[in-house]
């Protein structure tokens, strides 16, 4: 509870998001913007008056994997890389609720890569929020498919020689109908994007760049959260109408293109299946 109390009755004494969040489950490093992504999502959910009956959060394994438990809603902490198919099943079985996947870059693009591209291809109506910190933080700072060339990680002690994914391009090429990337500190744009993603049909993919100072920064830049954020702010280039294959994310050579890259309208998987059911039932009724 708050240490400061107020004498008057009508001003709030509790954080406005306290009813949406399990505050005791914020286990992240001090200053890690994963918490900010969580509060941004919670703010959007609160504004839309969504409660436990209206949505569900699914996450995988890793630092971002602990995010689902922070929500006072049906929250699932599944296995590494498998949040997306779990979310698919959840949404297909209960299309009324909004389903969010909150997972890290390794969870989504390495072990979960296959599920990621197929969910995008199917255009399943879920919102995937990928927290990209270019590393496997929780397990000690190993390289991820988003680790930049030359970076030192615990499994690339001599520098990473594998080029990283452009997750925006991957999502777009797989068929996602809403693709965006934002820096983790830009909460207003992130919130606007989250609102858009949750209220449209089809697969939304929102990549959020969140610097990991504990594992990644320490080995490469030896800086803390504020310095890494300043560094990120210096290289972020917000663009409108940038095509996905030009969405460069090169933290070492100083360019992080952010913005919305794909925003097309298409029939989501839920609607597709519903149309199928109706068609089949009609045809079946005609036969009898």
């Amino acid at each position, binding site marked *: *509870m*708050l*240490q*400061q109390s*107020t*004498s*008057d009755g009508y*001003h*709030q*004494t509790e*954080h*406005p*998001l*306290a009813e949406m*969040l399990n*505050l005791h489950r*914020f286990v*992240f490093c*001090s*200053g*890690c*913007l*994963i*918490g*900010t992504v*969580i*509060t*941004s999502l*919670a*703010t959007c959910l609160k504004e839309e008056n969504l409660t436990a009956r209206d949505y569900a959060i699914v996450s995988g394994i890793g630092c971002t994997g602990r995010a689902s438990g922070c929500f006072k809603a049906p929250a699932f902490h599944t296995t590494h890389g498998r949040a997306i198919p779990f979310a698919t099943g959840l949404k297909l079985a209960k299309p009324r609720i909004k389903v969010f996947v909150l997972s890290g870059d390794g969870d989504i693009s390495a072990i979960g890569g296959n599920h990621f591209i197929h969910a995008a291809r199917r255009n399943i109506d879920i919102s995937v929020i990928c927290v990209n910190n270019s590393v496997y933080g929780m397990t000690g700072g190993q390289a991820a498919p988003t680790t930049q060339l030359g970076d030192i990680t615990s499994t690339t002690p001599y520098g990473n020689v594998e080029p990283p994914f452009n997750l925006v391009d991957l999502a777009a090429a797989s068929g996602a109908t809403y693709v965006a990337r934002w820096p983790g*500190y830009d*909460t*207003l744009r992130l919130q606007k994007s989250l609102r858009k993603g949750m209220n449209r049909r089809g697969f939304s993919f929102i990549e959020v760049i969140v610097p990991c100072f504990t594992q990644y920064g320490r080995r490469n830049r030896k800086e803390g*959260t*504020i310095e890494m*954020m300043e560094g990120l702010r210096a290289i972020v280039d917000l663009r409108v109408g940038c095509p996905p294959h030009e969405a460069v994310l090169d933290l070492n050579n100083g360019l992080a293109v952010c913005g919305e890259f794909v925003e097309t309208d298409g029939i989501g998987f839920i609607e597709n299946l519903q149309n199928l059911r109706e068609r089949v039932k009609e045809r079946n009724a005609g036969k009898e």
Partner: protein
Amino acid sequence: MFPSNRRPILAPLQIKKYYRVIVDSEQCDGCSLCTAFCPLEVLEIGAQTNRRMLHFAVVANPLNCLGCEQCERICPAAAIFINEVESELEALV
């Protein structure tokens, strides 16, 4: 503000708004993002520590606050928020 030949009949009311910034000292872990993001030096990391032995943010200059809510939005621990209040006195609590 207005060109000299065109003035409103009544001078526009300028109401100063006050904001009370509230920090949950147990939830705060002293990451100092709020102090970095605050444009007007309202906050600083204090000398006191909480039950987790962490220094937490304190409202050093509450009257500076103009309600931009940057601190509330950026806080990764949902430890800080602001209320609009009616008077200077309430902002200082």
